[in-house]
Structure formats: C-alpha cells, structure tokens
C-alpha cells in the first residue's frame, strides 16, 4: 500500500515515540447495572484494586481505571468505583443513588427498601432522604 508504506517510512524516520511505561493488558470485565442497565467495561472486581494506590474497598466492587487521566504508575485517585453486587440479592448495581444504597455494604435499592428496618435508625433516615 502506497500511502501506508510512505507513512511507515515516515514513522521510521521520526524518532520512535517512547512509551511512558510498559502497558500491562487489563482484563475486561463487563458490568451491567441490574437497575438502570448502565453498561461499562471495568478492569477489576474485588477489594484491592491494583491501581488504587493505598486505598482498599470495604467490599468487592467493580472498579474502572480512571479514564480521564493518562495511565501512570504513581497517580493517586486513578480509579472509579462503578458498582458492586447487592449484599442481599447479589445482583450487580451501579453507584447511582437511584440504583443502590450504601451503608457498610451495598444494597440494591429494592433490597435496601425491604431490609432497611434492620439497620440503625440514622441509616433509615438517610435512606428515606435518598429515596425521598
């Protein structure tokens, strides 16, 4: 291919673009929120995201590498928690306040409603405020 060839040559002539570090292929985990159908590819599910620095999670979550900043080894806050499995029905739910409720564990909004009376009353108040 003419165009391709000349382009290849061009690249050869240029000084090779140095990559900041060797890229390790991330696994692709498909996350779909059972409530709002939010559909994202995340790179990690668990409690200790390897790219979250010194932060761990209270429960296993679906975690995405922060796509809004370039990949680098030593960046803080380079992750986004997208969702978790409901601690009761085990369905995946996203972090949106219309889809899940969090107190020590994630609850899908339905299970949260059904089980809220078992939680402290401050938490019940907060839940009502969130759903309200």
């Amino acid at each position: 291919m003419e165009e391709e060839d000349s382009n290849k040559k061009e690249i050869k002539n240029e000084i090779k673009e140095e990559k900041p570090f060797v890229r390790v292929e991330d696994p692709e985990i498909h996350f779909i929120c059972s409530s709002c159908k939010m559909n994202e590819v995340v790179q990690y599910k668990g409690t200790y995201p390897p790219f979250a620095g010194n932060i761990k999670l209270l429960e296993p979550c679906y975690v995405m590498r922060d796509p809004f900043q370039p990949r680098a080894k030593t960046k803080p806050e380079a992750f986004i928690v997208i969702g978790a499995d409901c601690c009761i029905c085990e369905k995946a739910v996203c972090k949106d306040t219309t889809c899940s409720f969090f107190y020590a564990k994630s609850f899908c909004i339905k299970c949260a409603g059904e089980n809220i009376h078992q939680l402290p009353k401050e938490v019940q108040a907060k839940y009502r405020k969130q759903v309200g």
Partner: protein
Amino acid sequence: MSSKSKTNLVNFSFCNFKHSLESFLVGNSPHETLVEDKSDFWKFVAKYESILKSSGQPVIPPPTDSSIPLEKKFSEFQKRFYVPLDFNDGGGSDKGRSKSSKRFVDDRNLSSTQIKQFGEIVLIYLDFKQKEKFQKIKKLRKTQKSLPIFKFKEKIKECLETEQILIIAGDTGCGKSTQVPQYLREFGYQKIACTQPRRLACVSLSKRVAHEMLDDYGTTVGFQIRFEKNKSSRTNILFITEGLLLRQLAVDANLDQYDVLILDEIHERNLQGDFLLGVTKCLIKAKPDLKLVLMSATINIELFQNYFNDENVQLIEVPGRLFPIKTVYLPPPSLELNKNKASTSSTTARFNPEPFVQVLNLIDQKFPTTERGDVLIFVSGVNEITTACDALKEYSERSTNPHWIILPLHSGLALSDQDKVFDYAPEGMRKCIVSTNIAETSLTVDGIRFVVDSGKVKEMSYDSSCKGQRLKEFWVSKSSADQRKGRAGRTGPGICYRIFTEKQYTAFEDYPTPEIYRVPLETILLQMISMGLPDVRVFPFIEPPAEESIEQTILALKQHSALTFDEKITALGKALANLPVEITIGKMLLMGCVFLDTQKILTLAAAMSVQSPFTNRAFTDPKCENERRDLESDNGDVFTLLNSYHEWLTMKWRSENTRKWCHKMGLEEQRFYEVAKLRNQFKNILESCNMLMSESTGDETSAERSKRHGEVQMLKSLKRAQKFQEPRKKKFLKREEFTEESFDNQTNDIRDVDFRLSHDSNQLEILMNSCDIQRSFKDLMLLKMVICAGFYPQIAIPDEFNYCKGGTQQFFHTFLKPFVSIHPNSQFSKNFEILKLNESEISEKPRYYTPKNPLSSHHQVLCYQNLLETAKPYLMNSIRMPAAQTLLLFSFSIDTNASITNVVCDSWLSLDFPIPEMGREVLLRAVRLRRTWQKLLSKKLEEVDGVASGEQKKEGRRDKQIREDLWDDLIKFTSLNVTYSVKKLLPADLKNLYNHCEINLEKFTINPFAEDFLVSQNTQKGGLQVAENVVYGCLNESTWSNALDLELQEQFWSCDFCGKSIVVTGLKKAVHKIKCTAKPSISYEEPSSHQSSSKDDKFYCRSCKQTFNFSKIEILKHKKSCR
C-alpha cells in the same frame, strides 16, 4: 490542648496543621500519595468543618475501627460506614502490595485520635471525588442517550443485518457523527472507517468519540489525515479524510482492512465525496460483506436514495433537535432605494456593515443584557468580516455601557483565535461572532440566540473556457440559508434576521452547486483512470459533470502526456496519480527528478502546493512591506516565498523565535510547517518508488549524537507534557485581548517542538540549502525551468502596447483569455518595468525585416500558477522567463517554415528569427534538449516499473554525466543570445497559416532534428513531422522570409568542421553538419567547464578579521561561534 479530649471544631481546625498533615497525605513514597490536588483537598476540609459547625455537630466522634464484624456495623450506627473506602496500610492485599507502615505525622500538638479522624476526612474526600467521577460518566451516558439518534440504534442494527447500504439523514445536533461509529462497534464491527471532508473534523471527532468511549488515552479510536495519523493495531474506529481513503482504495481496491465504511457529510457534495460515492457504489457489488453507511444532513435525500435505487438501500431519517426560530426579513434600506437601478450585482456594490450594526442596536433595545443573547453573523468573506467587525466595535464603544465582544471567525485565523468563539461572555456581556460560512456546517457554536444572515457567500468557480478560477460573491442557496438559521435554535428559541427580502429568498437556488461543477477535473479524472477505470465517461457520478468538460480534461491530460492518444494511462500518468498534489505540481516534481540535485525541487514543489503564508496584513501594513523588502525577488513571487522560508529556517537553525518574526512579517507560520511536512511526504513517495535516491545520512560525531540525544529527550518530554495537558477549557472572554506578548514564548508551541523533533541540525541544513536561491543563477534558472515544465501551457505574453503605459494598465494575454492583469500583491505589479523591453534591449532590424514588432533577445513571457478572477482576472504566482527558449522547450506543437525563420508555437504565438541560421540553431538545440529530458524521465519511470519486478540497475557514470550535462545545457540554452520578435496570432492569421504542401521525403535521408525519429508527412498542416512536437515546413512563407531566402541564395556558407564553402539553405546545412566527416567526435564536455562550486565564494568575517572559503552554512556556523 489535651490530647485525650474530644476534637471540637469550635477551637480546633485541621487546616491549622496543613504542614504536618502533608506527610499523611503523601505517605512514604510517591506510590502512597492519597490525593491528586492538595489545594482542592484543603478547600474541602475547610468547607467540611464549617458545615459540621453550622449544623451543630462540632464535636467529631471518635474514630471507628472498620474491621469490626458486620453485625456490629448494622446494629450500632457509625457514620464512617457511609464511606466504602479504607486505607490499605499493610492489610491483606491480593497482590501483596503496599506493605508500608502506618502513615507518620510528626506533630506533638496532634493526638493519634485526631490523626485517625483526619484519615476519615481524607476518606470522605476521596469518596466525594469518586462520586464526582462516577457522575461524570453517568452524565456522559445520559447525554448520549438523550441524542435523537439514540432512538434509532436498534433500527440501525436491524437494517445492517439485512441490507448492505444504509442512509442516515439527520441534521446537525442529532448525534450521528459521534454515535453511529460507536453503535457499529457495539454491534461487533471491528474495522470501521468513517470519512470526513475536513482534516480538522477527523481530529476533533476522534477525540470526542474516544472521550465518550472512556478511552481518551488509548487508541481504540484513531484518525488519519494528510500529515498526521494516530492509530494502532487496536484501533477499531478510524476517522479519515475522504481524499486519503480514496488513495487507499487506489492501491487496495478491495479494501480488506475495513468491514464498514461510513461516509459522513455526503450532502456537502464536494469532489472527493462524490467520487467516493461512485467508487463505493461499484465496490459493494464486489464485496458483499462490506457494509456502507451514508450520513447526510436532511438535504436532498431523494438524490442519494435514487442513486442507490438498484442496491436496496434503507433510509433512516432522524429528526433534528431544534428549538423554534423566528425569521425576520430585514432588507437594508439601500436595497429598497436602489431598486430601480439596473445593477444590483453584488460585486460592484461595496460591502455595507450598517445593517448589522442596526440589528445589534435592535437586539440591545429589545432584549435586556441579563438575558442570554449571543449573536452569529454570516458574511461572505474575510474582508467583509474585517469591515463588519470594525463597524460593530465602533458601535459597541459608542454605547454608554459597552457589552459586546466582537469575534471574527474564518478558516484563515490561527486555531487558537478560532477557539475563542467557544469561550463564554462574562456576566452582562454578549459575544458577537462574525463568520464566513465556516460556521454554517463545519463549526458548531452553542448558545447562539440570534443569527444575522447577509445571504451572501463567496465561492470559487472554475471557468473551463479560460482555465481560470473565479472567486465571486453569490446569493446562498435555500438550504444554506436554512442551515444558517438553524444555528440560532440549538440551545433555546432564537431569531434569525435575514438581510434580504422574502422574495429574494424564494428566488434562491434550492441547493448549493456541487463542487464537481466548480473545479478543474484533471486530478480526479486521472486518479480514476489510474484506479483502473477504463472509461471515465461511464463512471457512475451521482451528478455527472458536463461531457464537454470531461473531454477537455482528457485532452489536457493527453497534452501533459499523462494519457496516450488512445486514452491509456502512461507511466508518467501513473506516477502523477500517486502524488497527492495537482497535476501541475506533480509534473514539476517528476520532471525535476531527472536532475542530480533534487533538494531544491522538493522544497519548491512543497512551497507551491501550500496556501500562501502571506496574510492580507503582509500587503496592507506598510511595516510588513518594509520588513519583507530584503527578501523580495524580482524573478517571481514564489522566490520571495523561498527567500522567506530560508530566513525562517535560518532562524530555526539559530533557535530564534520564529513565531514572533512571522507575526512581524505578516506571515502565517503554520504554512511553513506544512511546507516542511509536505516536502518530507514528497520525498518519501518519490523515494519509495525509486524516482529519488534515498540519501545516506551524514556521519555524526559522537559528541553531536549525544547532544542531539539530549535535545530529543528534552523535546519529547515537552511533547508528552502537551499531549497529556487537559483539553482546552472554555474560558471567559475579556473585552480587550492583547495577543502581542504571547509571541515571546515559543517553548509551549507544539508545532515548534514537533518540527525540532523531526529535524536535526543536518536536516535543517539540507532544508536551508534547498531554498537558497540567491547564490546560484544556475539553480534559480533550473527551478524556473521546472516550474514551466509543470505549468505549461499556463503562459502569458505582455500586450504589445505595455511599453507606453503605466502600472495599472499593464495587460497580458493567455492562450485562452486576453487582457489579464498581474495581481496587485505581486512583486511584478510594483516592479512592472522589469517585464518591459528597455531601449537598449531592442535590436536594429535588418532591411528585409519589415514587420513592426520589435526585435530583441530579451523578450519575456510569464508562466503563472493559476488565473484567478476576483474584481478582475489576475495572474497568480507568476515567474518571468525568456520567451523563445521557453516556448520552444515546452510547446505541445511547434510549426516552422522551410528556412525556420518563422516558428509558430501551439498555433498561438509566432516567433520571427530574421537573422539567418538563428531560428534553426535554436530550434535544433531545443528539440535535442527536450528529447534528452524526456528520455531521461522515461528511463526513470521505466526503472520504477523495473524495481517493482525486482531488478534494480545501478546508474552508470555515463547516465549521470548526461543528467549533469542536460542541466548545464538547459542553462546555456536559456541564456542564448538570439534575436527575434514575438507576436500573438489573430484568428485571421490562423486561416492562412499552413501551406498544406507535401515535402519530398526522400530528401530526408537523415533527420537533423532527431536522428532516431522516423520522419513522416503531416497531413493536417502540410510539411514533415520531424520530432514528437515539431512539424517542419508547414508554414506559409511571408514577404520578408522570401526576401531573406533570396538574399541567402547569393551567399556561400562555410562549414565549421570541414571549412568547405557551399551554397545551401535551410535544413541542408544541418544535414551537412551531421554528415560532415570532419566533425569532432567528443560529445561530452570536460568537467572543468562546469560552474564553480559554491564553496569558492570568499567570506570576510568582521569580528575575527579573517577571510575564509566557506559555504553559506559554514558562514553561519562561524558567525555563531565567533561572536
């Protein structure tokens, strides 16, 4: 303060311990840093504390241990468990990372409880940031789903499952360009190409789509444009310009690298887009697996639907998303007054900005500045923008409370200036954008409430009758006017003020004229033929161009030897189709490849292909004119350009601030970068097909290498920093912006960094040499000759009465168009005397030469790059050439009389050579030169084919010598001292031009013009075809040529070689010379006769008072070191 007591925010704040708590935030290694933006974090802490205080909870509860059992968390309320995060300090990570000890804070005034409490605040902050980022994604998805196109996603999927072609028609704002490629990827397509008419759109769309796919820093989405590409093997969606995809098609007709082609913006109907439509229409038949998605605005959809009638096409119409827009017709009062005047032609009337001022005034009266009210004004061109902006600024200044920010917008603006139109006007202010039709489709500014439409557009059209372009102002089409109106309703209801009447609107054309009717077709037709199309006349154009213009184009291609007479593509044609430039420039490059030193030709071709870097200001601002004076060349404007480029490179070489210099000179620096890139592209293409020898890179010393290495490292880190910079955020506009100081800093100029990355000092020196034309006449003349080789027949001769007229009345005639002028910005326009014959250059006439035309050896013609009609027809970018030599070297057909005292070129210009022998000698030399040139070119082109089949021949020394000699001989030829007259033939002259007499072939045992050319009778004109382009003896004799013949018959002629004196005339002498046995046998000159090399110039250094034999580069080096 007691460390055991509770933390009470009434008398305590973490903000007072910023310094000692910093170590908590940073940890023991960079890996442990917790927050990205510390100042943002401390702002959060301050706010958090004040909220707690104001809500009556100033006492922070004791820290919680997150490892307590779940039941306890559920039974006993702990606020801390609203936050799903914790520190991973030595805990059981699954990868065994971060075994760090606890974060250590060295401050006796802080208790360990307080430090733990601080940690909880950090977690709250991080959770807050998590929620922000999550919402960012959520919002992105919500915006995507709210786009009108989203409702059609499933339908698109279904359509593509059953059909091969799908048309999606939707207006701007429906989201088709950004969403459809993503949908296709979701449907499982892996190799998606999406074409765009404009380079800029490719870049910005790929950025936008990558962002929406959360892959800003990856390569799932890429782009490829003329000078740049950004893609990898992982790329699934590629935005590519139409032209580039066509080139890929040309070499890989099956296009296996894509499984879907999306052709976007096909309603624009530009040349490449139309061509692509035709090509893909053919392609899908051959490739049933390939899907084709055509996207267009809702303009003339039936046309596209009907075009694909045979192929079962599906149509999806997506409604746009527009708020209601009120249309107000506000014709200028002058239009009403002048109704009776016959001339309403818009070109004669000067542009009047008053109606636009009135509209702003109207808006000011009707709508308080507290309401939103940005304005977008459409006018036809850059000059109109300047005039309107001045008037509007003046209006704004006059008011007691100036609140208008006036912003010009056109494609000639620097990108950073274009970006300003996206900024917000501050509270109480409004922005008013004055734009060309660039904001009609290609650029979308949100938030516009008022559109003011002049209804005018300036458009380039092509006049095939004079092969000239015309830039004229027209009324826009209905569809353009509606498109402009639509820009007022993107963010809310709007108003469109039309500076014309409703009646005029109804008289507008429905659609704009497609580009195929407005441009020369040479390049596109040649490209089609080279792709293997046997007959371009049957190509399935969506709207075919006129048959006549196709025929004319084919004829022109034949004249350029790109096609044979039976319309097969030649080797030259193939090579031309390979080059991404107009045929004229391509031919220049190829004809230039024959010579030994091609560096200059590459630069010249690149410089002539880019838009001129001289801005309007360069010609209107006397300061710029002054600054430029030293760089101006009286040989042609292109040489002024090369001189400027040389100066620019020299400054780059000295690492000086070129941006500032360009601004001072009124130059658009971007063009110079483009010249460098394009030159590199030419070089690569020509090298890859072996038209050019790839040069070996010079040896560097290790010191030079390591210096360059350091430089490259520095540049790369600069580049990386820029690449990862946040995309430009919208800013608030200021009413007065001073840009002067921004020229002082060049380190943040990405173009400069790129340029320096790809050009080390060796390459810079090569570039500098390649545009240094002031030192060698030989180089200059060769460049001029190569220009003519490419641009012929674009020749103009001066009017015969120019000698007695002033500057404004200098006229020239081209073959097709009489009385054209030189563009007022051209150097020749000021310095027109240089094109006239002065008294001393006019020779005395022999008594038998009766015509009144002056005899001289200094006649000149102009060779021009294009003919452009604005107010008047103008010759653009011309160079001056010696007339006879140029015509004899490049004319397509040369006719002579029997004694070769009269030569007619292309049945247009007649040359008289009244001095005996002269005409014949000049013509013989010209024929020999052009044949040698042609042979060398053919040989090169054959080699190209040879290389393809694996054989590569080493160039012999003899060939090299021939190439060297050709150059020398051409230079000598152009400086021949030959006396002649030039005359333009009139239609009446043409009637009696040819004698239609047969000449006895037997007399021609030897062809003195070209020994290996088989002489034949020319049946059309009479006489004999003696070379490819020469017919001998077909012209009728004139009174004076007969008289000369009589005189000559009485004279003896003595041969230079054998010394014999014989009575012979005309060609017989030439025949004798060839036959003469006493002829010396050496045909090549000794190398010593070549011009002295450039090293021989003496250079005297004023600072060290020494004289050197230096080349120009060495002089610079010396000057630098000797300061």
